[in-house]
């Protein structure tokens, strides 16, 4: 798996703690090859969010930190890098649980996502329009302050804002949460489209295993802060045992039809 050169992101035996006492990750190693879509699976508390935050170095907020191991991106270690620096390298995370700027309008929220690239006014507008095309609902609400939006709308704003940064690697934490089925589909279509057309790499933490494995190339399953299984998405999906064990009775029926 770890073939040199093609690897973009590698986590090497990462351990992390919260508040000096809770050991949340106990030696997670994984690789996300360039241009792939990789799924991170696991039950509540398995450590998915922690893994993503360790990559983007946002653990500090919840008083967590990486105590061992290394995280590297395109061959260089990004461990302990200032979060803004990480973003500068093209890694953008969509946080779990709709972190919008409540007092800023939808438009300002989206714009703030683009600041990093220092685009001109024109370009900013064009990029925003692209987001509005994907999420027409946001266009109607563009002058509403994001804190007043419905849960799903906020989730769209958070995703849209991250897309505005035109990342090379996008870390998505439960993107489908709270979204209507139609929008979930839309989002995965966008993911697929960006991946295919622009070569954006995705690392997704997602509960809906069937759905995400449908789109992903590869999957890692976490349990208690450890990677317990990994493999090509197809293989995982075929493994009835695995699906049943981790995610209920499994099978195709899980996607509502």
């Amino acid at each position, binding site marked *: 798996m770890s073939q040199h050169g093609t690897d973009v992101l590698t986590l090497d035996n990462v351990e992390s703690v919260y508040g000096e006492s809770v050991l949340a990750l106990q030696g997670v190693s994984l690789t996300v090859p360039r241009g792939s879509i990789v799924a991170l699976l696991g039950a509540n508390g398995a450590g998915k969010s922690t893994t993503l935050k360790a990559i983007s170095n946002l653990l500090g*907020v919840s008083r967590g930190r990486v105590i061992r191991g290394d995280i590297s991106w395109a061959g260089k270690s990004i461990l302990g890098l200032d*979060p803004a620096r990480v*973003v500068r390298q093209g890694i953008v995370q969509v946080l779990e649980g709709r*972190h919008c700027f409540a*007092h*800023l309008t939808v438009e300002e929220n989206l714009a703030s996502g683009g*600041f990093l690239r220092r685009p001109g006014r024109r370009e900013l507008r064009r990029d925003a329009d692209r987001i509005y095309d994907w999420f027409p609902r946001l266009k109607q609400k563009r002058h509403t302050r994001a804190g*007043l939006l419905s849960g799903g709308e906020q989730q769209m704003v958070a995703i849209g804002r991250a897309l505005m940064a035109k990342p090379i690697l996008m870390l998505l934490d439960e993107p489908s949460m709270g979204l209507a089925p139609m929008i979930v589909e839309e989002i995965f279509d966008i993911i697929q489209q960006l991946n295919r057309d622009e070569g954006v790499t995705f690392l997704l933490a997602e509960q809906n295993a069937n759905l995400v494995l449908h789109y992903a190339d590869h999957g890692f399953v976490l349990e208690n802060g450890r990677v317990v299984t990994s493999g090509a998405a197809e293989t995982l999906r075929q493994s009835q045992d695995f699906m049943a064990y981790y995610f209920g009775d499994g099978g195709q029926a899980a996607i509502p039809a």
Partner: protein
Amino acid sequence: MLFLVNIIVAGLLAGLMYALVAIGFVLIYKASGVFNFAQGAMVLLSALTFVTLNEHGLPFWLCFIITVGVLIVASVLIEFLVLRPLVNRSPDTLFMATLGLSFVIEGLAQLVLGTDVHQLDLGIPDVPLKLYGLQVSDFDLFTAAVSILLVAVLALLFGKTRVGISLRAVADNTLAAQSIGIRLPHIWRIVWSVAGVVALIAGLLWGNRQGVQFSLSLVVLKAMPVLIIGGFSSIPGAIVGGLIVGATENLADIYIGPLVHGAVSDWFAYILATAFLLIRPNGLFGEKPIQRV
């Protein structure tokens, strides 16, 4: 009648002076949701630096530039030593840190620059012009002009611009701001530096009035009700709040004071501010907190 008008005018002008101090608070509140108690110390530090340089014979403009330089260095240090290690902590904690900071700044300022009382003369006459019997001086007009200019510039700078939006984003949700690559240190350094310059301006004008000495740092207390009435996050609010506090406080001292055997302006502004809040819980122009469930 003229007396009454004069009292009100004097109050309004005093209010603008309060507002100058209040604006410094607003800036930092806007950028971090934190009430910066060290603003008073910054006023003291900047005025002391300026006066000391001036007493060594440097020309006015050079003193100004060097002082601004000192304030920028101070902002960088504060960001690095205090704000960065406390990133993402509660506003209470940060408020507390600014209290600690005010001790450090006040101590340092007095240690290095001494505890002496200095005279500061900006060379603007402070003698009433007697326009239609109004007691307004050149200095008053100058203060008013400076306040209005400052508000205009800051409103532009921190309005819909990139810096303005980033600033509000940081105050709203630091975590999310970090996740999209907003450089908190950068934003903070900018804001603290600008707040420092505002403190310098306030320090110069107040210093001209009362001399440059430790008490300058106490004008904070006068800025509090102004801030509260205007709303913590609104720059124009600081001006309006200042005008309201200044005018009513003077009237209260003259017309209520004698009834209760004492000066009432100590507490009057705070009671007024409370009354205002009962009607508008976030001040006149403050942002409503948004909490959807």
